[in-house]
């Protein structure tokens, strides 16, 4: 999934560099990538979502 996320990021970077008029779509890719990154982190921490320390 990390591989897929980097492909999305590359796609967004290519759009703003070579197709700057497609800013909205590139930004949508950025948002999707952020959500995927957060989801993967939450998968990695799903047995304890907040730090394992005294709060």
């Amino acid at each position: 999934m990390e591989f897929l996320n980097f492909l999305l990021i590359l796609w967004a970077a290519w759009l703003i560099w070579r197709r700057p008029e497609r800013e909205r779509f590139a930004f949508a890719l950025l948002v999707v990538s952020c959500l995927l990154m957060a989801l993967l982190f939450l998968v990695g921490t799903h047995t304890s979502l907040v730090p394992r320390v005294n709060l």
Partner: protein
Amino acid sequence: MSQDRLRAILAWIVIVLTAVPVGGAVWLGVVHGESPCILCWAQRTSMVLIGLVGLFVIRYGPRPRYIGMVVLLGAWGVFMSLRHSSLHLARDVGQGYAAPYFGVHTYAWAWLIHWLVLGVVGVLLLMLREEPAEEGPHDPGRVGRFAFVLFVAVVAANASQAFITTGPPPFMGQADPVRFSLNPRHWVWMNRDELAGRVSLRGSWTIPRPDPVALDVDPEPAGGPLADLPTLPAQDWGRIGPALDGQLTGFARDTKTGQFLGTTEHFSAYVFDSSLTRIEHHVELDHQYSIDLTPLAGATFLGDTLALLATNKSYVLLRPDTSADPDREWRHFRATTGDVTELRRSRFATVRARLLYVLSLAYDPEADELITVSVPSARHRRLVVSRFTRADMTLASEFLPRLDPGLSLRSDDRSLAEYVVTGSVVRNGLLYLISGAFSTVLVIDLTEKVVVAAYTVPGIEQPVGLAARGSQLLVAQADGRIAAVELPLVGGSSARGPVGS
């Protein structure tokens, strides 16, 4: 600062961010075989996304949604780094996860980088001149174009590393990755059950605090894990004479003076005379300043010093002192009879009992050590006896007591950890424990670390403390009533083992 100037600065920031932490991570993988775990990947991706937002600003100017996105990424990155670091920061000196770089592990570097991103964004916004927003894309300029090229190259390298170490979708990063290799025979994609385990907010740290006066336990002796126990019937009953400010939570007796020590649910400590009819000293601790005290649950005499223990293993040492300075003690006590000095307030640190609360405190005069016994929770079922050296109040030893062959569990799925020890006392090298669950007295040989005897004590309710007086054990209840039972002399003049003496 103009928007053109901002874009030029951002281009350099994107170059540094892309080249050093993100590009450096790929270099660590290829050259040193370092592979990120699933949490590392998320943190690295967050840095890449921050760089991508920088490219947006270089191309389109500082639009509000870009600024909002980078602030969100910075804040989320700080959280991710702290969450990741929390797995390792409290370990022993020099211990961490994977290799450190410049003395710091990568998850800690990620915290610093995300924190710096937030700081830099703040500084740049402070310096940005207010001018009309420019429409349409801008030429990124020479430095900006270099930033674009570098970004694409480094992200492509990351994508390659991600494919090798985590695989194509639906595979994802691993909790414990293996070292990087270009040889496909060594590629490992999700060999562990990353998705196993139930979703939890706090995981192993979900541990409800026990309330010493309202334990949710079964007091019925017949339901206990040990089979065929003899009974210690109450020989007589007494009561603490003076009115207290709350229910009793801890209880002890000084063998030399005969005085009693009691603690209450409202952070009070009372010293009573030997007949329990008169209060000789009293303080109400200020439990919030500065080491926090959860409810007091244990008490013992250390010679002329009084030791009090909270359920979170914080402790307080007091001493009756007719020359106590009331102004000096104001910081420690919310109420006092004026003749007590606080000597020390600190915390016990344990290893095996680290995620367990305690409800008892005892003192072993022969070893000059204090003793706590953990109480189980739904998350952690262990009965751990922890011993602390009186001289430095530091952990001396810990053990999980074994069961004497003369005792037996009702079935294989039963355990000593079902007992909830609420009171304890040491006598003649034996540790006597009273359990609120199943109203049972356990006797542990401190030398052999073995439960050598156990007895049920029918008729008691909410025991909170245990003391020895002559040939009797005194079981103190939360309501201030005291049950006296025969002190079983295991291995001595009385019979050894669960024979009821």
